């Protein structure tokens, strides 16, 4: 056998090994995994504040030198929107840029961040999605370090029909947090909706690369800590008896969650957002402190 034949066989075997490796094995005892906090749904009393808000997901990393600029741009937008924007900073596991810069810094990465990041195909940092909108067939993503892109994307997300008003309330109950979500449908809807809850924390000191500098006292705000429900939400039991849920329907969902003792709850917020189960598009969002 000549050299080229041996080479061809070697490369072929390598390709076959690589492709065969592309196969996941899940043992029987691992087929079911916890799905997050459960909701108890009942008839609600409505929502006084009918404001439509949207969620800005900023995928970021402590080793990402342009991410602090994005923080500034988003903070400005947040101030300008008068509470209609809820921003969350997400650190996933897909890049070395999200690993703690030094050994004393806290690890801001989360599993739920990785789930979302993989699903939306985040390949570079910083990157943002607002309202999980689509642009043609792709997710509408943009670089929030470019200030000119931030406000238009928020306007696009809010330039959608307000299908339901949403409010969230969180009360500490021993080691748990009791969370109540109120919904009031503002339009007749045939879509299946989900409510997703997560907890985020402000004022976390962790080393951050910033341009050519390394800032050991960088203050990180609205850091995603955990999803309270399943990462893709809990289906809203809207009590519909036909394909349509009517405008004016009021529902209340109750959840219980046990937070980590490592977090400062006085600096934490609970965020709820309402989204389309199939398309993932976010219709409304709400945020509250933990009482």
């Amino acid at each position, binding site marked *: 056998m000549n050299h*080229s*034949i041996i080479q*061809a066989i070697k490369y*072929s075997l390598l*390709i*076959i090994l690589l*492709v*065969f490796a*592309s*196969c*996941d*094995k*899940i043992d*029987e*005892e*691992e*087929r*079911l*995994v*916890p*799905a997050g906090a*459960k909701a108890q749904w009942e008839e609600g009393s409505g929502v006084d504040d009918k404001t439509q808000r949207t969620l800005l997901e900023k995928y970021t990393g402590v080793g990402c030198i342009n991410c602090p600029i994005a923080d500034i741009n988003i903070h400005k937008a947040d101030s300008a929107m008068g509470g209609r924007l809820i921003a969350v900073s997400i650190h996933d596991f897909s890049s070395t840029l999200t690993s703690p810069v030094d050994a004393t810094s806290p690890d801001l990465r989360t599993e739920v961040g990785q*789930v979302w990041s*993989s*699903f939306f195909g985040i390949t570079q940092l910083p990157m943002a999605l607002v309202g999980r909108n689509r642009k043609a*067939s792709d997710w509408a993503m943009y670089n929030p370090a470019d200030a000119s892109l931030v406000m238009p994307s928020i306007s696009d997300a809010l330039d959608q029909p307000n299908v339901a008003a949403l409010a969230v309330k969180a009360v500490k109950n021993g080691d748990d947090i009791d969370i109540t979500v109120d919904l009031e449908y503002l339009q007749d809807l045939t879509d299946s909706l*989900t409510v997703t809850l997560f907890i985020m924390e402000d004022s976390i000191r962790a080393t951050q690369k910033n341009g050519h500098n390394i800032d050991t006292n960088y203050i990180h705000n609205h850091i995603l800590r955990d999803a309270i429900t*399943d*990462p*893709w*939400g*809990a*289906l809203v039991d809207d009590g519909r008896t036909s394909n349509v849920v009517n405008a004016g329907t009021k529902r209340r969902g109750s959840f219980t969650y046990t937070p980590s003792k490592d977090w400062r709850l006085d600096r934490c917020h609970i965020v709820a957002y309402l989204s389309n189960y199939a398309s*993932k598009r976010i219709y409304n969002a709400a945020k509250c402190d933990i009482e």
Partner: protein
Amino acid sequence: MKKHILLLLALCVAVSTAMGQGIMGGHVTGNFQIDAQTSREDSVIGSKSLPEIMHLNARGDILYTNGNFSAGLRYEAYLNPMEGFRPEYEGQGIANYFASYKTKDFAITAGHFYEQFGNGLTLRAYEDRYLGIDNAIRGFNVMYRPFRGITLKGLIGQQRYFWDQRGLVRGIDGEVSVNELLASLAEAKTRLTLGASFVSKYEATSGINVDSYLDGFKLNLPANVGAAAVRMDLSHGGFGLQAEYARKGDDPCDLNNYIYHKGEAIWVSASYSQKGLSANLQAKRIENMCFRSVRSEKYPEAMYINYIPAITKQHTYAFLSMYPYQTQTDGEMGLQADVIYKIKKETLLGGKYGTDLHLNASVITGLDMQPVALSGLDTAMTGAPGSSGYSSDFFKAGDLYYADASLEVARKLSSKVKLAATYGYVVYNPVVEGHTGDIHHNHVVVADLTWKLNRKNVLRFEGEWMGSDSKYDGEDKRSGDWIMGLVEYNFTSKWFFCVSDQYAYNDGVGNYYNLSVGYTTGATRIQFGYGKQREGIICIGGVCRTVPASNGFTFSLTTSF
């Protein structure tokens, strides 16, 4: 402005350079097809009026070829999609584009492509415009022949989903022609080709909610699922033997109710042919071989990565094809025998011109599935999402899905008249269409007479009868006993005129008359029709599309250059 002028100049230079190198030579070919229909409400057959008056499907394929290089695109328009095609097709645009470079031993395609590994058990990306299927992969496809007799293929891409691209498919395939590889066997009468393929799909795991079944838990879904197959093609003189065996990893999906169950498929075909006789025997067994790019996909024709070959006859006569078999990718097993024999001319049975006999029979059943529970759960959870679903004995058959037998006798009665007579018997279980109800038993008789008046004028008469034990209960409008007549006149080699009527005379409803006229000149054909279409399904190769009832005009134009 200055920028634009510079850009234009650069483009001119590039084009003139390209032409100078002969790159702009080559030739362009293409084809166009426009189909349109109108429909109005008809309470008897269940047709609805179209709010837009007319629906239209149209497409144009353009192919540019220059030596080893080719590039093409397809423009499609669904304004709005014709009845029976998915509403997601609505719109128009470039649906397919590619560039390809191909030599004898190497080929590479970027863009959309169609591909098949073996018989398709692991991968078949294909298009069938009449079924509304287009599983084209957009990505890269490479073929390489490192040595004579060895062909390697590799591909990666996303599948077309109406106007979107979804999923991620990776695959490799290798095929060895033993007779080409080994010079000593080059002229051997025995020919052997061996092949193997592996295909893997990736899909991020997003919330499959099984809360209603198991409080507080969800499924841990595999993001990467692989399927592998081995195959052979052996022939010796008039004998042939083809076989393919495939296995697939756990692949919970909507169609299999999110069970974790290995897929398995085996397909075997043995054939013999000599002058005046050919015989073919096929067998297959399919277990959980639904392999799709998107696990939650509900449309039966969308997002399939693989294809299960059909082993039932593709009938062409109306009543024999009224209940076509739809492949059950979740599980089925079956046999088909097909014999074609020509009785010699100038014999007692053969007559002056000889007689053609075509005998075909097939039977398809489900698998014998015994539900199993997820470990540690009570038996009420058997077959539920997260469990292994079921166990099944390899050789034990389940419920009968479909069986048919048909004999066609065709004989020239004179130099100008040919008669084909067919008898067929079809047993059909509505469960294959997802319905419940009794199994139908249908007897069909067809007489098809072709009278060649002269070189340019041909008359054809067709009469069909179907006797069925099915009765119309307000649901299936194919039920009952039917008769049909058809007259078709082809004149001047360019025009044709056809009139037909199908009538349910007992235990059924409907009188479906149709008129059509067409004209063909060169590569262009234009056809107008008016009539009623009965609701039902059409299947090609075991893959089916629902056809709703319609009552109105149809128009079709095809041309190529």
